[in-house]
């Protein structure tokens, strides 16, 4: 559905995107991750036809969006700005965009959408008096007013409080699950991407450093680790030295009574035996799964980026 081929973009001679390649299939929620300035928004702008690439192609439904007015009817967007007019009411805003997209049953569509985003009781209020979270929810409704097949969301929950973030996240998940929409999600919120996306690409200084499903990335980049909770603080240094001396332990970190050991193989029981043989009392030993955050930070740090 979205096919980005060898995309390159330069601003004033400086390369901001370099050979970007990825595909997003129908029904997928694709997370495009990266630190600020990595080139996420530039990529999205090129796909949407707002910017022209220096080389390469960005296809949606097999064609470039550029000046293809009809193709843009099949795409919904929620960019950094909500795209709402503060002087108009919630209803008037949706009505305006519904007319631009030639929506057939405007009244019915707006009514359903306002229920969907939980703003049906505020339809006649001016958007200027809405909270940031309410504006974002209304913007979500705006983005799907014409029932598009593909949605492009740029940091949809940025700057919202945790409750509003959850509401927006749930709405995106509902759009994907209930309506089967394909969603391209630009974000630097790892938690959001982890919860919502089926596939991700990690962008770093204009280049894709990782591109796969979250599970595959965990398998690929996430080293197995064991978390050991000690009973006595005085034994912590001894335990740390012991673990560091083992050839199958590559790295150890201590945080109070807890030690995280990165191991080459999953030898949880062996580690427990070694510690007990040396008389170190252990409260708990458990395997730790690498979070997307750890993977992301590993990739970004390997590239030498300051976070």
């Amino acid at each position, binding site marked *: 559905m979205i096919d980005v081929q060898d995309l390159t973009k330069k601003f004033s001679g400086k390369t901001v995107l370099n050979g970007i390649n990825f595909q997003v299939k129908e029904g997928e929620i694709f997370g495009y991750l990266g630190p600020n300035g990595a080139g996420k928004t530039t990529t999205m*702008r090129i796909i*949407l036809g707002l910017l*022209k690439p220096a080389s390469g192609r960005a296809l949606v439904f097999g064609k470039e969006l550029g000046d293809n007015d*009809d193709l843009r009817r099949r795409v919904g967007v929620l960019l950094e700005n909500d*795209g709402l007019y503060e002087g108009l009411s919630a209803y008037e805003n949706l009505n305006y965009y519904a007319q*631009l997209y030639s929506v057939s049953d405007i009244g019915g569509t707006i009514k359903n959408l306002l229920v969907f985003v939980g703003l049906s009781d505020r339809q006649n209020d001016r958007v200027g008096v809405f909270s940031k979270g309410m504006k974002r929810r209304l913007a979500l409704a705006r983005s799907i007013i014409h029932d598009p097949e593909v949605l492009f969301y740029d940091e949809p929950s940025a700057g919202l409080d945790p409750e509003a973030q959850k509401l927006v996240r749930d709405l995106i998940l509902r759009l994907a699950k209930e309506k089967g929409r394909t969603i391209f999600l630009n974000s630097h919120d790892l938690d959001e991407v982890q919860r919502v996306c089926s596939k991700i690409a990690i962008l770093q200084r204009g280049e894709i450093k990782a591109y796969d499903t979250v599970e595959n990335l965990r398998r690929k980049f996430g080293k197995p680790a064991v978390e050991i909770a000690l009973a006595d603080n005085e034994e912590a240094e001894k335990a740390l030295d012991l673990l560091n001396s083992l050839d199958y332990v590559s790295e150890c970190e201590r945080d109070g009574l807890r030690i995280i050991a990165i191991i080459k193989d999953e030898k949880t029981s062996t580690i427990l035996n070694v510690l007990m043989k040396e008389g170190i009392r252990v409260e708990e030993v458990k395997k730790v799964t690498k979070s997307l955050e750890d993977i992301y930070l590993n990739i970004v740090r390997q590239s030498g980026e300051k976070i």
Partner: protein
Amino acid sequence: MSSRNMALVVARKEIKNVIRNKGLLFGGLWFGGMFGVLNVLFGGQVFSFNNSVFSAALLVGVFVGFMFSAQVFLREKREKIIETMLCTPLNLKSIWFGKVLGATVPAYLFSLLSVTLVIIISNITMRSLLLPSLAILIHILVVVPVFIASTISLIGFCQFLLGMRENKIISYLIILVLFPFMYPSIFSGLIQGNMNVVISWSEVVVCLIVSVLLLSLTTYLSRYLSKEKIVTTIP
């Protein structure tokens, strides 16, 4: 829906947005109203009746149009709403045309308001029935709306094409140039010699030619406007 109808949707929204912006409305009323009152009450030495009506229609329309274009073009760009608009099925020309129309209609209404004020106050102060000449009537009904539309389209073009700093400089220049003409009673020494002419058909035709030239110029320049130019100059 055709491109023309879509442009009309944009224009209707812009008019609604302008009307609901109290600050903008107050500004328009202030400049339009004050122009009429000041020039008739204190500018009698400078302007004849027909001169007052001629310049009220033109200058108020252009100045208020300039104020409205800041809301219609520049604010939408500064607040990045334009990016969402550029992703809709509208092409750039329809968006631009809709916005020019949306700023021209209320600016023209303010121009008519100012003309009405000038006529009423002149009739009261002169204690005789004063009506605009035929040339002035044609000027008000034909030339002024075209002139307002042409200046708004040129200003809008610059506001879309250029960055915020360049637009700020252009705004200051427009204010500096227009303000002395807006209030000749204040700046009478500066412009008396130029404005103390009898308005006839030739002045009206010159205005029409200038406005058509401005429109042609903007239409020609519009080929240099692209989505990329707009997006890359968003602050």
